[in-house]
């Protein structure tokens, strides 16, 4: 065991390419892509996947987030077994879905359900970027719209954690229309006075950024998340200039008036609880 540890370390140290440096396989140890420090994976998990050295927010899986943010054993999942078809007969799509199902242990790129946060009932949707980059196809759109409708019918707040590269190309315009589906569902929630909190995590771009992610009564984000409509490379090619380093980060959006607050992951639960408390009917419960 000790030998494994040393040999692994040596192997990482000898890899020269920048890409490989970022890409440490999952295992006992983990390297922070930001500060390059190596530490125990367990240590990272205990710290809510926030780097103990530089505060870099590592990605979190949907179920990790549920575990860290919501009350123990309070989660009831909805639409767990809904899976994508290949409606356009798009080449290689089914294989890609199958691969991601095995890799992530998820059926799709979002997990939805009902959960309690510090005793408050909520309808929650958590996206997971391990599955097809968190992209939105028919299933993601349908599950999120269902969660919104459930929130409306049960008169409970809806909270989403976004992590998505945008609309899913392999379902073509059906994916695009999920932006409409989710937004129109949010309109109904909104019309009945329902509360919607959007928490944007890394990355939130394209069609997801340009639909429900931006439509919260409160729009929050985790530090350092990439958030934006168009891809950096496309913008650079279009305007023929180099973009600043912090372009499209949470902090950049906050500065430009696009967010209510950037919240450190360690403070997320307490901040959400404060908002839920302020919105709770008060007295009776």
């Amino acid at each position, binding site marked *: 065991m000790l030998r494994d540890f040393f040999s692994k370390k040596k192997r990482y140290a000898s890899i020269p390419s920048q890409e490989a440096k970022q890409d440490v396989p999952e295992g006992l140890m983990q390297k922070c892509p930001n500060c390059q420090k190596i530490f125990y994976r367990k240590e990272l998990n205990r710290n809510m996947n926030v780097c103990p050295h530089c505060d870099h927010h590592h990605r979190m899986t949907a179920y990790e987030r549920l575990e860290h943010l919501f009350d123990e054993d309070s989660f009831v999942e909805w639409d767990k*077994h*809904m*899976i*994508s*078809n290949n*409606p*356009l007969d*798009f*080449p290689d799509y089914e294989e890609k879905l199958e691969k991601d199902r095995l890799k992530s242990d998820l*059926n799709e790129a979002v997990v939805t359900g009902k959960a309690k946060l510090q005793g408050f009932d909520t309808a929650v949707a958590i996206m997971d970027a391990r599955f097809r980059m968190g992209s939105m*196809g*028919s*299933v993601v759109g*349908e599950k999120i*719209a269902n969660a919104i409708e459930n929130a409306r019918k049960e008169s409970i707040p809806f909270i989403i954690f976004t992590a998505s590269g945008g*609309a899913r*190309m392999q*379902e*073509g*315009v*059906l*994916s*695009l*229309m*999920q*932006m*409409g*589906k989710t*937004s*129109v*569902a*949010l*309109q109904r929630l*909104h*019309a009945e006075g329902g509360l919607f909190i959007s928490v944007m995590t890394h990355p939130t771009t*394209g*069609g997801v*950024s*340009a*639909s*429900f*992610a*931006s*439509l919260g009564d409160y729009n929050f984000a985790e530090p350092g998340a990439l*958030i*934006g*409509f*168009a*891809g950096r490379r*496309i*913008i650079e090619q*279009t*305007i023929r*200039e180099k*973009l600043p380093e912090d*372009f*499209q980060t949470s902090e950049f959006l906050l500065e*430009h*008036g*696009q967010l209510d607050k950037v919240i450190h992951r360690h403070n997320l639960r307490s901040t959400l609880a404060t908002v839920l408390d302020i919105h709770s009917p008060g007295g009776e419960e």
Partner: protein
Amino acid sequence: MMKHVLEFEKPVMELRDKIAELKRLTENSEMDLSDEIQKLEKRLEKLETDVYDRMQPWDRVQMARHPERPTTLDYIENLFTDFLELHGDRLYGDDEAIVSGIAKFNGTPVTVIGHQRGKDTKENIRRNFGMPHPEGYRKALRLMKQADKFKRPIITFIDTKGAYPGKAAEERGQSEAIARNLLEMGGFTVPIICIVIGEGGSGGALGLGIGDRIFMLENSTYSVISPEGAASILWKDAAYAQKAAESMKITSYDLKDLDIVDEVIPEIRGGAHRDIQAQSEEIKQVISQALEELEKLSESQLLEERFNKYKNIGEYTHLDL
């Protein structure tokens, strides 16, 4: 003779030129070529049917982008009376990539909004090639709210490669501007009719595209990403755009099959630009009928049906356990 000839319609254009040439010859000399001309005209008729009735997705992409293709302002001129263009979002500026205003349709007051491409380079620069910034979407929203207040139906024309991918657009909240329109369009209690007249490019198109009826001109396209963009991501080479156009199902008939579009509006053979008046007449009938149907609905029925329309889009299944 047409200025712009698309690759797939070259045989048609060549034959037309030849017929025109023979006609000129007949006029200017004693030779009588009318038999020959008649034969060729018959052949042209058949050739046109062959070429235009069998357009491939990529041909339609080219047609949707045709430089002479009628724009929003062309249709406004032909479909409405008393059009008064209104400018500005009251927040930042006036985005000329979107035109909007009030007008009458068959005597009924309406609000009209659409993406606006330029017809030449100079106009295209002014209109940013029909690719809006956030202020364009916010201008549209301002006028849709006004329409809602004064109970005027909203008619939108969709024709954009997409929302502009620029630095300033991001800084001013391109995502939020589009997202806000999607949500608000879900809630207006007046009929909303959306017509894709050229390119329906992704979120930038959808930002004017939530409605009770979605129509597409026969040779327009609607897609989540341009065929070139999809090809460069999926196959790392934009040259596969033709393949991407086929795989992604982006033609009007594809969208009808996917139950997204309510109706395909047939185009003049050879494309809408061949006869804008006749094309407008086709569109006019479709709008009239839709308005007539929608005005029968109560406000709550209208919203319920609009919600269901979007809720029903998508294909999925449940895992057998």
